[in-house]
């Protein structure tokens, strides 16, 4: 006896193919939706800002006069922030992931910690700003300096790095570490020579994401009391500073007073995007260099 009735199959064939076509269009439109607004944003920012970008704007000091204003201070401030965020998140984040995945005893407590790290990744950034203000600016009396800002942003993106690194470490095939242990390697030797090199591309992907988030964050910095109008350049971890997103924020706010500030903000956005693009390119380059097949 045949279980599949040919006529039923025929009858349903048309609607199946139609549904297939419709859903394809739905997914395409969903993609277009995001792309469209991204394109609007980019076009608007570039059309407003590109003519304001020149050497003097990039290397100049800040000024209330739109024609003389430069953003070198903010670029340096953001760079200093990254100088804190990159090593702190990388060392602490990867260290935590290594401990959780490879050393910690698996069990309820481990699951509890892991779940909460994922939850921390979803905590609003302004809350981290308050934490930074209490802890670094006031309790530790750093003031609103590079170190306080950098550590606050590090805390903010640490969960992203930890989760990404955990996943990357988990994805390293077990048979590689078994081979290493099988030859009498210790855990640390196996981690250092086998697991980390294999997990590095995944870890870097997470780091890229985290860095992009940190570089564009404004809310925690406003809570910390980071000034926007600051003439001197930061030269050490304990100098006050301003950052590119702060600059954008204040120029946008004040554009009702001075119309040209809106264009300066757009120009600064372009610089921020380029900086982000450069950082990502470096990370992607490193990632591809270390990409391994297994």
């Amino acid at each position, binding site marked *: 006896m045949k279980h599949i009735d040919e006529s039923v199959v025929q009858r349903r064939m048309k609607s199946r193919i139609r549904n297939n076509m419709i859903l394809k269009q739905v997914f395409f439109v969903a993609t277009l939706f995001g792309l469209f607004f991204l394109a609007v944003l980019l076009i608007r920012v570039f059309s407003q800002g590109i003519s304001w970008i020149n050497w003097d704007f990039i290397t100049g000091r800040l000024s209330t006069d739109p024609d003389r204003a430069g953003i070198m201070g903010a670029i340096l401030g953001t760079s200093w922030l990254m100088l804190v965020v990159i090593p702190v998140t990388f060392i602490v984040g990867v260290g935590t992931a290594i401990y959780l995945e490879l050393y910690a005893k*698996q069990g309820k407590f481990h699951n509890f910690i892991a779940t909460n790290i994922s939850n921390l990744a979803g905590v609003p950034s302004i809350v981290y700003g308050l934490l930074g203000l209490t802890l670094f600016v006031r309790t530790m009396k750093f003031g609103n300096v590079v170190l306080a800002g950098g550590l606050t942003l590090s805390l903010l993106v640490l969960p992203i790095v930890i989760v990404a690194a955990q996943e990357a470490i988990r994805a390293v*095939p077990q*048979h*590689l570490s*078994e*081979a*290493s*242990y*099988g*030859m*009498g*390697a*210790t855990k640390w*030797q196996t981690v250092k*020579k*086998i697991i980390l090199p*294999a997990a590095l591309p995944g870890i870097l992907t997470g780091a890229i994401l985290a860095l992009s988030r940190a570089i564009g964050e404004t809310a925690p910095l406003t809570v910390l009391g980071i000034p926007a109008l600051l003439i001197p350049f930061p030269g050490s971890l304990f100098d006050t500073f301003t950052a590119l997103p702060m600059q954008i924020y204040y120029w946008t706010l004040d554009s009702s007073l001075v119309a040209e500030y809106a264009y300066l903000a757009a120009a600064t956005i372009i610089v921020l995007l380029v900086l982000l693009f450069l950082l990502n390119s470096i990370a992607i380059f490193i990632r591809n260099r270390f990409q*391994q*097949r*297994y």
Partner: protein
Amino acid sequence: MSALSENQKIRVKINDKEVNESAASEEKRAVFQTKNLNLWYSETHALKDINLEIKENEVTAVIGPSGCGKSTYIKTLNRMVELVPGVRITGEIKYKDKNILDKDFSVEELRTQVGMVFQKPNPFPKSIYENIAYGPKIHGIKNKKILDEIVEKSLRGASIWDEVKDRLHENAYGLSGGQQQRLCIARCLAVEPEVILMDEPTSALDPKSTLRIEELVQELRKDYSIIIVTHNMQQAARISDKTAFFLNGEVVEFDDTDKIFTNPSDQRTEDYISGRFG
């Protein structure tokens, strides 16, 4: 039982070679003495009262149906089984008169002397040279000349030198499956172990590569004690001196390979070997 040993005596008399071999085996030292070994994975009792004595410079095959505990057993011999969470072991395994299950027995030292070749070829995503040099390096050998020598000696030992000598610095993943497995054997030799554990080393390979590995095992038995888990009974019969038949976590029979395959003393062994189950 006595009838069987009668039978064996007759066969030994018939075959001069076997007389010599069994005479030699009397003098062989035991590398592993397993006494009352029990192992649990959480609640599952995977190994039950295992008592086995494995002699040096012999090839010992471990056969049995899937899930019978044969892989678990050889992974206990280098304590790799401890990587599985929730494992509990009781009993004793003496490696050269030291109980390797003692908590203060260093696994790193044990695994330096008891190497392992895995089911699936698992070279590192590194060059051929770096794969072999990995073991010596983790044990602290840094001298480039010594490393070069170890690499060549190990690759020759695993009879793969001629195939790879011109591409030592290429990625090991460019090798075929069979070559990768011989590379893994070479990598194991590079640490200069005394025992080599092989966990179904040919199950992922084609017949030709399998044959090469089997030939290699015949070469290696001169210098190493080899314990090989295999699903392939012809393979066990071809390459081993002794065979242990595992079933449901117990050793049903452990004897000379010839005897196991021609005249097993347990009905279950005979059933398995003749393909009635498994």
